[in-house]
Every structure is written in structure tokens, then in C-alpha cells.
């Protein structure tokens, strides 16, 4: 019983790491642009499909496929940014969101047209047996996912707190009008933050498909959903909250699935979010940030 609890916690942290990265990417767009990007997951799916396509036709090593995934995602993300977010920068947030929904449909159909099978195999991140640490089993992929997530978060932190770009981004998050008045190039910031969000999302996507060794078109909606869910659990627009929200989601899912099965697992996550929103809309970890 105790062993199961620890094992589930380990598994939960692993999936939580991926959710954390997804949430961070989603939050970057929401926190900076104040917009919901429904094409966030689909852009990641596009990148993963690009890598899959390359692998099916040319065979590629892990690193090359990771690079292709990132390139594909950033490209798709740039397309979304130009068509959905740049035109509505000073306009309606809902219009931007519906436009991102429209592009989600596009990206999904594109992927299905290029690769019509419902499911494709993806090269494994690690081929080998899981590590045995006493009674616990830790998949090496899980360890790699956790390490990459930590590394990405550290790098992101340095970007946001040790660079001029990061300073500008934080200024825009806190006080968008004042930042603009101070001469910060808002459109330029938006474009670059979108690229960073796509990059982070692509890393998450690559980790997910390479450790589950498969990719499906459903990855798009799934990633957006998990990213949004984790972001809201942790605190809308807060990056540390996004990480904690992702980890929390992973833990909640792992434990409820163990006891009650996959349907109750999802039910628990949604119920928790609903209760949280009803009682404390700002999320589990933020203090006074208000919704906009």
C-alpha cells in the first residue's frame, strides 16, 4: 500500500513534469498576450507530426527528431501568431481565440492529410528496462523527462530574470500600458514570447511522444487541455503556479487512477478545478492576482 503510494507519486511527478511544461508554455502566451491560444497543443502536434513524417521517410536520431519537433512547433506557432494574435492585438480577445480555434482545425486536418493513419509509432526516448530502486521502479524516460523539465525551467527563469528581454516581458506582464509608454516594443515582445512558448511546448510534446512511443492527432486538443487545466490549478498567469499546477495535476491523476480507474481520474481533476474556480478563482498558488 505504501509502496503503491510512493510509486504513484513518482509516476505522477513524471507526467506532472510534462504537464508543467505544457502549462508554462500556455501561461507565457496567456500571461503576456492576455489571450487564450487554442492552437497551442495543435502547433505542438504539428511539430511532432513533422518529426514523425521525417522519421517515417528518412529515419532520424533522437536529437534530430527533437530539433525537427521544435522547428515545426515554432513554425506553426508563428503562423498562428501572425494570423490569430497579431491582427487582434488591440482588439477582441474572443476573436483571437476563435481564430486560434479555426487554425487548430486547420493544423489537425493538415496532419491527418499528411499522415492518415490514426496512430503512428514514435522512436522511444530510451530503450531499456526501468531502473529498480528497491521496491520502486523508475523508468529512465521518466528520469529524463524530469531532468529536461527542470533544465527548461531553470533556463526560462534565467531568461526572464537575467536578460533584458526577460525584464521587458515581466514589465509587460505586470503593467502592459506603462511598459508600452516606457518604449518597450510590445509587438516584438509578443512575437518572441510566442516563439519561447512554442519552444517549451515542443519540448513537452517531444518528451511525451517519445516516452509513450506513439503520436496521434488527438495530441493537439489533449495538450491544450492539460496545459489549460494545469495553468488554472496553479494560478492564472503565474509561471511558478503553472509548474506547481502541472505537478499537482500529475499527482492527482496518478493517485485517483490507481484507486478508481481512468474515468474517475479525469473526473477528479475536473471536479477539483471546478471547486477551485468556484471558491478561489485565482488558483492554488497565487495570492492576489486578479482575472482579466
Amino acid at each position, binding site marked *: 500500500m505504501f509502496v503503491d503510494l510512493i510509486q504513484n507519486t513518482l509516476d505522477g511527478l513524471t507526467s506532472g513534469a510534462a504537464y508543467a511544461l505544457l502549462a508554462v508554455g500556455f501561461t507565457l502566451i496567456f500571461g503576456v498576450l492576455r489571450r487564450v491560444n487554442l492552437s497551442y497543443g495543435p502547433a505542438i502536434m504539428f511539430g511532432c507530426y513533422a518529426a514523425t513524417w521525417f522519421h517515417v521517410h528518412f529515419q532520424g536520431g533522437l536529437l534530430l527528431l527533437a530539433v525537427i519537433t521544435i522547428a515545426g512547433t515554432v513554425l506553426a506557432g508563428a503562423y498562428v501568431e501572425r494570423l490569430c494574435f497579431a491582427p487582434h492585438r488591440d482588439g477582441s480577445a474572443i476573436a483571437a481565440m476563435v481564430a486560434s480555434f479555426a487554425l487548430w482545425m486547420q493544423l489537425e486536418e493538415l496532419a491527418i492529410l499528411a499522415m492518415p493513419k490514426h496512430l503512428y509509432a514514435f522512436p522511444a526516448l530510451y530503450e531499456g528496462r526501468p531502473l529498480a530502486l528497491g521496491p520502486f521502479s523508475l523508468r529512465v524516460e521518466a528520469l529524463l523527462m524530469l531532468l529536461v523539465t527542470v533544465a527548461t525551467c531553470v533556463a526560462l527563469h534565467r531568461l526572464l530574470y537575467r536578460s533584458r528581454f526577460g525584464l521587458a516581458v515581466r514589465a509587460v506582464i505586470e503593467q502592459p500600458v506603462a511598459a508600452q509608454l516606457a518604449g518597450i516594443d510590445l509587438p516584438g515582445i509578443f512575437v518572441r514570447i510566442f516563439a519561447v512558448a512554442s519552444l517549451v511546448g515542443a519540448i513537452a510534446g517531444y518528451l511525451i511522444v517519445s516516452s509513450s512511443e506513439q503520436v496521434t492527432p488527438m495530441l493537439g486538443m489533449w495538450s491544450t487541455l492539460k496545459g489549460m487545466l494545469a495553468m488554472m490549478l496553479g494560478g492564472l498567469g503565474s509561471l511558478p503556479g503553472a509548474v506547481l499546477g502541472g505537478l499537482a495535476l500529475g499527482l492527482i491523476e496518478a493517485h485517483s487512477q490507481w484507486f478508481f*480507474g481512468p474515468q474517475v481520474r479525469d473526473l477528479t481533476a475536473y471536479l477539483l478545478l471546478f471547486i477551485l474556480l468556484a471558491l478561489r478563482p485565482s488558483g492554488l498558488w497565487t495570492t492576489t492576482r486578479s482575472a482579466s
Partner: protein
Amino acid sequence: MAKSALFLILALASLPAAAQRAQAELECRFTGTDFVYDCLIRLKRAGEPLPGASITVGADMPSMPMAHNIRPVKAKPGKNPGEYLARLDLEMRGEWAVKLRLAGPVKDQLILHYDFDEKGARPVIRSGRLPRK
């Protein structure tokens, strides 16, 4: 003893109603053109092949049910009694809910779930309860 006899009588009495329901099976082959499949429908009632039915075949996807509009086709009678042929033009691969609208001796609508891939269609077998980890 009397109880089981009663049960048997009731079971036999209710059997005709259930047995009147038609059942069908699909066997589909990918024609090579995206996403067209040649399908053979085997229609049965109470275990016996059911000839002479007019079947209109349509399809929809379980997710996003009303957004796919597949052109319904009228099935033609096949070689053997109870067999019908139809060419389905789907929008993509994956799981489809094939709708057989029956007219003729039986008026009913059957929904069959099949997974269409690059070879043909396989019936989707869904377990009632999902297994625990």
C-alpha cells in the same frame, strides 16, 4: 421447479420480440482511393440471413457527430441472400459509426462501430469496464 418452468415460459414468450431485431456485420475493403471502401453487409434476423431489405448506408464519427456529412448510399443486393453491397466514401480513417437504415421487412436503424484503416475495416470491440492499472 415451478419457478424455473415459469421462467422458461416467460423467456420463450419474450424471445420472439428480441429475435425480431435485425443484426448486421460489415466486411470492408479499401479500394485504393482515399477514403473509399467497398463494403459487404451481412444482415441477419434470429440467426437467419435477411434478404429483401432496403438498406441506406450512412456514417458519422462518434466525436463531432453532426459535422461530417457522408453521402448516404443505397446498398445493392449481393450474391447470397442476406448479403448487400455498398461503396462508402468516408472523409478520413479512424473509427466511424456506420448507420444502416433498414426499410422493407424490418424497419430499424443499426449502428455499427468500425475502425477504417488502409486495408479495410475492423469492428471496434470496446470493453465494458476499463481495467485497473
